[in-house]
């Protein structure tokens, strides 16, 4: 702590971070020198709880790890259980799961785009984007009955079918989404005030991104084309033509453009799924008390924020012996620290939001700093004592 450094706690209650996490920044004037993330405010001990619940009950728990990528976690969980059961799910169910996954990606990326605009103080864009996001929320509500936590994937297939007479309406809504996203892509790329706050801000070099095994748009914005849908394809992603978006700017603008292009890509995938939806049943029989044979399985899903890995070990019986979840945000935190160092205080929110952190996913296993630092709101006398102690150090 050099003479002029000043410790700014950001969070756990902070309007820029929608979730409780606490970053301690060592700053010199307006420059960030060092970052100590202190999270764990969201840790609920889900993995322990999963060991004491049956497979069907775990479906509801897995879905509520994180509101925005609930479908991704559920898809991965059902893939794991079906692999251990050796159960083959109907082709139609696979297409519906991919359709839901891509819809959720559109929903999450649009949400993030709005929040990113809000971080740099551009509230008008935030309101416009979230107004257009309502279109995808209505679409999700029509398909699954709920705006968030759709509970579509279940062990053995999908819970609800897509009525074929509704498909033209879904397509019309997808078209609206595509136009609006193209408009926002143009705004993001040309609006000078956005460029001022995002170009060259929070830059991550490609070597660092690979060294720290980052994932998702955070990695792809540094020019590395790594996508779980291509590296370890699951469901029917190997039959669907789509390309992996990469930009090599490595700064916040690259993150914005990667996500906006991915929305356009997801709209194409959704349309492909709707066109090639095979008919047939949507679910295999799996009784709620069903027992799962011994075995283990690892599965990857490309969630909105990156590669989401689940590991299941079952030793017979109706409860998993061990279930491990590593959400994408935890993999992105070391590279987030790299991005934050050397920036301005004013850039903290946009760089923090850059990796689209989902601390409710991460917090099942995020990390805390032992050093006994006070909570975010130092009272006056602590600050004075701290100030005196700091000056005569």
């Amino acid at each position, binding site marked *: 702590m050099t003479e002029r450094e*000043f*410790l*700014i*706690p950001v969070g756990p209650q*902070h*309007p*820029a971070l929608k979730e409780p996490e606490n970053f301690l920044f060592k700053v010199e004037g*307006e420059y960030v020198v060092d970052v100590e993330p202190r999270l764990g405010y969201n840790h609920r001990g889900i993995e322990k709880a999963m060991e004491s619940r049956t497979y069907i009950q775990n479906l509801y728990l897995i879905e509520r790890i994180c509101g925005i990528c609930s479908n991704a976690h559920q898809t991965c969980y059902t893939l794991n259980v079906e692999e251990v059961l050796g159960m083959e799910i109907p082709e139609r169910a696979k297409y519906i799961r991919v359709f839901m996954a891509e819809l959720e990606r559109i929903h999450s990326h649009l949400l993030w785009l709005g929040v990113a*605009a*809000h*971080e*740099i*103080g*551009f*509230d*008008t*864009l935030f*309101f*416009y984007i979230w*107004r257009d996001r309502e279109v995808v929320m209505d679409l999700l509500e029509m398909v699954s009955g709920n705006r968030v936590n759709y509970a579509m994937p279940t062990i053995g297939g999908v819970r609800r079918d897509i009525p074929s007479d509704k498909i033209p309406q879904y397509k019309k809504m997808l078209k609206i989404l595509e136009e609006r996203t193209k408009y926002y892509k143009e705004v993001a790329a040309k*609006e000078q*005030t*956005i460029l*001022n*706050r995002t170009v060259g801000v929070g830059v991550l070099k490609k070597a660092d991104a690979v060294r720290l095994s980052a994932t998702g748009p955070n990695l792809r914005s540094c020019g590395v084309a790594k996508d779980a849908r291509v590296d370890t394809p699951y469901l029917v992603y190997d039959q669907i033509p789509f390309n992996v978006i990469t930009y090599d700017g490595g700064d916040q603008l690259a993150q914005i453009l990667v996500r906006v292009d991915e929305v356009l890509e997801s709209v194409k995938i959704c349309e492909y799924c709707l066109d090639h939806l095979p008919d047939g049943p949507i679910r295999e029989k799996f009784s709620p008390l069903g027992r799962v044979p011994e075995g283990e399985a690892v599965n990857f899903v490309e969630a909105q924020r990156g590669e989401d890995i689940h590991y299941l070990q079952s030793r017979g019986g109706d409860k998993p012996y061990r279930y491990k979840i590593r959400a994408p945000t935890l993999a992105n935190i070391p590279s987030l620290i790299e991005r934050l160092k050397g920036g*301005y*205080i*004013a*850039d*903290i*929110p946009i760089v923090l939001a850059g990796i689209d952190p989902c601390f409710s996913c991460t917090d099942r296993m995020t990390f805390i700093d032992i050093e006994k630092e006070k909570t975010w*709101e*130092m*009272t*006056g*006398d602590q*600050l*004075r004592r701290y100030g005196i102690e700091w000056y005569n150090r």
Partner: protein
Amino acid sequence: MVQSIGDIIQIFVFPGFLFLLNYALFAEWLSRKFAARLQNRIGPLHTGWKGILQPLADSIKLLAKEDITPSAADKLVFYATPIVIFALPLASLLLIPIQSITNLWSFDPVISFEGDLILILLSMTIVILSIFLAGWSSSNRFGAVGATRAALQMLAYEIPLGLASIGPAIFAQSLSIKKIVNWQIESFTSFLQSPSLLAIPVWLIMATGFAVFVICLLAELELRPFDIPEAETEIVGGWQVEFSGRKLLLLVVGRDIKMVLAAALLTSLFLGGAAGPWPIPPLGWFIIKTVVCIFILSNLSILLARYRIDQMLYGSWKYLIPVSVLQAMAVIALTGVM
């Protein structure tokens, strides 16, 4: 005796505090509604007709709230600064010509003397200094960072603000706002009778002065592109973070009055004050012109994202100050020729 009662009414009732306070609340409703409509929202709706009483409801609620003073805060400064931030803009609004109560068609201000323009600029600077003190005295980290940012921002826009306001003063050969307004009326009427070629550069200079003035007012009012001192997403409310209850009320209404002061200054220096053709009295013209200025200010603040403090300093030192200096020089050159 009669004279003094007239003054009291002028200061406290008509073009004075009562009218200005209501007008400030009306201005806040206007900008909030305008911002909402621009963002495709509805804005306040249920309090009074179309939500017009919303600012009043906010103020009364704040009056009735608990007023917390942090134990470590510097008590005297913590109490004094909100009062200064509220009182100074209100007082300097008395210097603006709105409407004289003696006869319907004249618009001389409550007090007018040579150099009241300088007094208004001084009061604006003191308000910013008290904002710095307020943030610093609240002994909260975010307050401290907000305060330093407010001070930094003042460095950036004070000089262009002063220079831009000198333009009309030099044209009118005087530093009193009343005379500046009169000059504008004469030059405008003379231009209508005999449009001379010489008028074009005058209009050009006045236009650049207007633009520079608007940008500096955005910074002074801490509106969107320059609301760095109270950047809500970065430092949690900036220098206002520790204020609550009555002190927060003084700050909120103080900001509205500053908005009205900015709009009034803009109209009287560049848009011909409260003067206008026959049917509408000066008060009507004053309200129309200030509403237009408020629209301009809040429209600009809606459409732009927030700049970083260093970008703002860089922008103002590199562009704003040279332009305002050029404008002042051009004015001097032109008056020499005329």
